[in-house]
């Protein structure tokens, strides 16, 4: 990967673009502190990320390629667990409300394994409703969503920015957002033997 100098600020959307295999997922993994960069360094609020990792994670909501939805739990149980991991207390109403917002009203007590690809994805996205975190990092969040779902998610992202949150995302989707979205273009890939 070439040189890259990124700054993400509150109230900003950063979109990472690039062809398949250009390293978007790897970059997000670096940004979430999962991979350490081969060179260069990460800072958060002026502190090195490795040192401030715990505090950093408390501000972060990440949804990756794999949605992190357990097939043998119901939609509600899945969200309850996510909330516990984020250390917030939620009652049944809040969870049901979040699920209704992502269009899963009536599916609260169906085990996730019985839902379609897009519906499982929506369970993961319901975290955005349930867990208030300033920084969202989303890897291909529009995957498997239908048109209504894409529309909802775009609005949700704009609303989060409006509320002062920051979003980093990758997507191959045509992205119907305004000009205030910063885009980073990653290089083309060259085959290697």
């Amino acid at each position: 990967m070439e040189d890259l100098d990124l700054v993400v600020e509150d109230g900003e959307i950063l979109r990472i673009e690039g062809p398949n295999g250009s390293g978007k997922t790897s970059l997000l993994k670096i940004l979430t502190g999962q991979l350490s960069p081969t060179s260069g360094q990460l800072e958060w609020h002026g502190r090195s990320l490795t040192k401030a990792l715990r505090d950093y994670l408390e501000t972060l909501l990440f949804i990756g390629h794999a949605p992190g939805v357990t097939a043998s739990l119901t939609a509600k149980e899945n969200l309850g667990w996510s909330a516990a991991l984020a250390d917030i207390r939620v009652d049944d109403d809040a969870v049901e409300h979040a699920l209704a917002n992502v269009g899963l009203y009536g599916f609260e007590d169906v085990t996730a394994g019985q839902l379609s690809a897009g519906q499982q994805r929506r369970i993961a996205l319901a975290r955005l409703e349930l867990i208030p975190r300033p920084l969202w990092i989303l890897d291909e969040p529009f995957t498997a969503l239908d048109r209504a779902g894409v529309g909802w998610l775009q609005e949700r992202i704009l609303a989060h920015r409006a509320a002062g949150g920051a979003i980093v995302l990758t997507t191959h989707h045509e992205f119907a957002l305004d000009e205030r979205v910063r885009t980073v273009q990653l290089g083309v890939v060259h085959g290697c033997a």
Partner: protein
Amino acid sequence: MWKFIHKLGSPKWCYQLCGRLQPWFWIAATTLLVVGAVWSLAFSPPDYQMGDSYRIIYVHVPAAILAQSVFVAMTLASVVFLVWKIKLADMAASVMAPFGAAMTFLGLFSGALWGIPTWGTWWTWDARLTSMLIQLFIYIGIIALRGAFANTGQGAKAVAVLTLVGVVNIPIIKYSVYWWNTLHQPATFTLTERPAMPASMWVPLLIMVLGFYCFFIALTLYRLRSEILKRESRTRWVQEFMM
């Protein structure tokens, strides 16, 4: 004929049929079991070798025979289910399995009890005993496999395949006493010969066997009815029926 099979495949019709047949089998089972039990315990003579302990035969043999018959019935049901996709056959197989396992256990248990006075040990690794133990494990495997699937239809088919594979054990149980010379005695009842026991011993035994069969059928009809209601609970006829 085809029409009949088709009709039999309709849960509603079958539910009603089971309801009509059920009382008769309960009556037959109770009568046969009571008559058989009284006769065998009170009236048939003690064995000249084994004394009174031989009376375990009146539980042991029916249970052992049922253990195998139930599995054969499950196999037939599985074939019907896999070939003609009649869900009812699977429901029948699913309610029969626990009963078969229970009978296998009873056969093993009564045999073990009986072994103490006659063979001097409650267990030996003889071919028949072993194949019977394998049968118990096969039943348990079938029940476990069904439980492991969240999707009922998928579990049903998987169980049907396993049942077809498992049926190889039945001839092994049956013929183990001929293929290997073992402690256990060969069959009493065959189609070609008269039993070697005196009639006062084998007639009550036959009654007990028939009684066990009737009990099995009655219980299966009863449990099949509740299984039908459970699996068809979303259909209109069940909902109307429940109101």
